[in-house]
């Protein structure tokens, strides 16, 4: 077992109650040997304090509902831990995906392959 275990925070923003997506992604990341900290549906403050307290190497946001909520969370995480990479998935319309990418967030819309998401996690956490 690797000593340098990488840690990933998985959070849902907004009030969209769909769990399936983040749960499946979290399982895939666990099976790839990551420690995944699930916080479920969370407000921006919860996401930021979890990113700090848990000293994660990557934040995964499942974006449901309004994109502005996600943007607020991203801004706050980036203000608190500027070096921390963020990737996002969920039902993100193409124009919103562009906005997120402009903020330095990698976007994995519905239809993305789990293996691509795991690869991204390995690259973003510096495991590969």
């Amino acid at each position, binding site marked *: *077992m*690797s*000593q*340098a*275990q990488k*840690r990933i925070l998985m959070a849902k923003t907004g009030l969209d109650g769909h769990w399936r997506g983040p749960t499946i992604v*979290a*399982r895939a*990341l*666990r*099976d*790839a*040997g*990551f*420690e*995944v*900290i*699930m*916080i*479920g*549906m*969370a*407000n921006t*403050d*919860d996401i*930021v*304090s*979890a990113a*700090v*307290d*848990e*000293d994660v190497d990557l934040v995964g946001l499942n974006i449901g509902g309004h994109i502005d909520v996600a943007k607020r969370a991203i801004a706050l995480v980036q203000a608190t*831990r500027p070096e921390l990479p963020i990737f996002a998935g969920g039902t993100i319309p193409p124009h919103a995906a562009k906005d997120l990418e402009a903020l330095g967030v990698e976007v994995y819309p519905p239809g993305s392959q789990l293996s691509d998401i795991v690869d991204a996690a390995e690259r973003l956490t510096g495991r590969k």
Partner: protein
Amino acid sequence: MTEDLPAQISALLARCGEGDRLALARLLSLLEREPAAEGFIRTQLDSTPANSAFVIGFTGAPGAGKSSLINALLPEACQSGAKVAVLAVDPSSPVSGGALLGDRVRMQGHSQGANVFIRSMASRGENGGLTRTTETALRLLAHGGWDQILVETLGIGQVELDIVNLATTVVVVLTPGWGDSFQANKAGLTEVGDVFVINKADKEGLNQTRVDLQDSLSLLTSTIAPVIAETVATTGQGIAELWQTICSHTSAMTDAGLIGQRRSLRQSKLMEKSLLRHLESQLKELLASETGKSVLSDIARGKISLEEAYRKLVAKL
């Protein structure tokens, strides 16, 4: 990152002592990631005053409601102005080494309080219900000024009782319908708990569970009698009373001078653990060595008996 680890650790410890959460979080990561970090941290903390934080351990079957109870207790614990930290342990996958740490899902809405720090930890192959470095993690939290620490162990089986060596008060969480008095005695849980919580007390079977529990607790001869509490964590029923119960237990322990006794017992247990770990790594080296391999293949081919192989290997240790 590994270069000049001691200097990095002293700088972080200084910031952590001033209440910097990120520094504390980094130290907890280093502790888990860098095998050499634990020694440096302990040496540097040894010159600081002894660990005075109160550690309340929560243990019990998976799904009994440990996370939800801690979540419900957090506002109570913070009320007196105390800074409250939570360490939540979940299992690592023995296959991939990865882990899903989900205790935090039940602990939401506390971020607005700067007085709550929550950290999830993966067991990483430890089988005592905690992580290998929990004791040092507790000292780091105390160093960071967190004076109440709630520790959630893995769902308990019959052996995951490391928490007893670390906690000032052990809370065992049960639910109605949980076994009978035979189970209680068999599992050994009743010997380790200070406070017994029957959570989900709105479910059927509460009375029977209470009677069974009272029954098996009545046979104990501890200085301070264990207490039974009943809660429904999700509605808040019984939560304030439970916190009072825990606090009374902690002060009774302090008054009777038992906390110091537990702390010194903890030291010798830790010593024992590190010795065992040391021996275990020696043993693994031996088995991987040429001698070890040839003995193992001799056994496989039936050339020597297990007893003979055992004696050969022990002689090499």
